[in-house]
């Protein structure tokens, strides 16, 4: 069974399982992954170890069933009204774990997706701050980076939208709800389980070497003596992934 699954699982499947595992330690919260692969991972979490997790329908409702990703008009079992204003109530209450993207991220998990360059005349206007400052200061946050490269993993981000561990540590009690969990990429899983809460290589995806990850990271990553391979989803999970992602968005996003 395990061998068959190993053969069958794609890199995107491994990423989906790693994204699901971001929610492993969460209780009854809103699992709010943003983007196709994070959504697929989040819904895999709900379909397996996390039935207590609640998710959005992508608009203004919270749903109880595991909806397929990318299917317009998919059936939804709605249990709550969640327009934007109530989303802020929820996230300021702390009962949420978000997975966001990042255009840049540094060793302490300071994240930027707002803009690149001069604030008065940016070289590239990106998303803006969106909800990143409020998310990171109020509840658990993970990141999904489908293009692990030195352009993204940088020594210093141009502007901080999502708050990193070093900055949160200076805030006193106001920083007490800040918690960065995992950074999942197309190559590896990273975490912050180090004495100074800087980024550490947690596992490498099958087919990726530690040196590959080091070469794709623009700062000195903490690399333990032995780095395990990322978990490969089992046959049940692979079956669920086909149901959750019937149009194969995941392999389009990470085509390895």
């Amino acid at each position, binding site marked *: 069974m395990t061998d068959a699954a190993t053969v069958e699982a794609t890199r995107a499947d491994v990423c989906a399982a790693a994204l699901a595992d971001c929610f492993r330690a969460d209780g009854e919260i809103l699992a709010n992954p943003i983007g196709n692969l994070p959504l697929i991972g989040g819904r895999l979490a709900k379909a397996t170890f996390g039935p207590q997790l609640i998710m959005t329908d992508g*608009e*203004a*409702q919270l749903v109880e069933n595991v909806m397929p990703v990318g299917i317009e008009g998919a059936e939804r079992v709605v249990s709550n*009204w969640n*327009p*934007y*204003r109530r989303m*802020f109530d929820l*996230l*300021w209450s702390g009962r949420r774990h978000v997975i966001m993207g990042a255009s840049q991220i540094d060793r302490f998990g300071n994240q930027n997706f*707002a*803009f690149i360059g001069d*604030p*008065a*005349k*940016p*070289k*590239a*206007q*990106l*998303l*803006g*701050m*969106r*909800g*990143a*400052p*409020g998310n*990171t*200061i*109020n509840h658990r946050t993970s990141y999904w980076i489908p293009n692990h490269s030195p352009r993204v993993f940088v020594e210093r981000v141009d*502007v*901080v*939208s*999502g*708050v*990193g561990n070093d*900055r*949160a540590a*200076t*805030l*006193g*009690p*106001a*920083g007490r*709800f*800040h918690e960065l969990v995992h950074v999942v990429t197309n190559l590896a899983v990273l975490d912050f389980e180090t004495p100074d809460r800087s980024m550490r290589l947690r596992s490498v995806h099958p087919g990726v070497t530690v040196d590959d990850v080091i070469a794709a990271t623009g700062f000195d990553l903490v690399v333990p003596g032995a780095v395990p391979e990322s978990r490969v989803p089992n046959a049940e999970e692979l079956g669920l992934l086909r149901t959750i992602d019937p149009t194969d968005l995941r392999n389009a996003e990470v085509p390895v």
Partner: protein
Amino acid sequence: MPAPDKRVTIDEIVGEIRDGMTIGIGGWGSRRKPMALVRALLRSPVKDLTVVSYGGPDVGLLCRAGKVRHTVCAFVSLDSIALEPHFRNARQSGQVTNTEMDEGMMLLGLQAAAWRVPFLPSRVGLGSDVTGLDPELRTVTSPYDDGEELLAVPAIELDVALIHMNRGDVGGSGQYLGPDPYFDDLFCGAAKRRFMSVERIVETEKLLELGPPQSLLVSRLMVDGVVETPHGAHFTSCAPDYERDEEFQAEYAATARSDEAWDGFRAKYLDVDEAAYQEAVR
């Protein structure tokens, strides 16, 4: 006693907007934007506006037409097109500056203005460059035993608010029938002058036939003028009356690639009045 009749024309609304004013625009991204009012503003000589918005094509259009000096936005997005291309150009050319804002922080700023308090305390923004980039922002220390230091999110006071609702009455009561009220009531609360366009003006007696009491988001106490603009949120969504016009939005987004494309779009859709616009997009 009948409610006051606050019906106005689009041009009367735009006539109240002066150079340099701070205007707030309701909706979110490319959803339920008062586009007929925005289009009228594009045709006016007004300039140097500060625009506060959960930004979508309202912000992009006003920037492209040279109406805007400064924006207060946590994002400017067309939803199905993640980055508003005209806003990007305006920012990248240095034409427009932006107050970098967290989405929730904007809610607090509008709420503070609506409640007539100078600020609301929050953790939101602390540690991020929302505070790093804005030297005006101050923190406040809790006067209670916890002593926590919080950001004093300043009130965002608006000269004018522009919003679009599904239904309304002549007195300015407004009803949304879609899934999300966004923050349109707060935009009105934060503004000195408040104008609402609606898909359809109906008799007050009809409002509760159309939706439950909680759909009556906007009180006439918060509205100075109301105008019926059928299809007036086009090309943004106005559920359940209509969805976003994705094809038209893509055509609009493509005009960011060249001046020629923009000029053609402008001549066809923007240098004409609302009736001609609606005819052109039908």
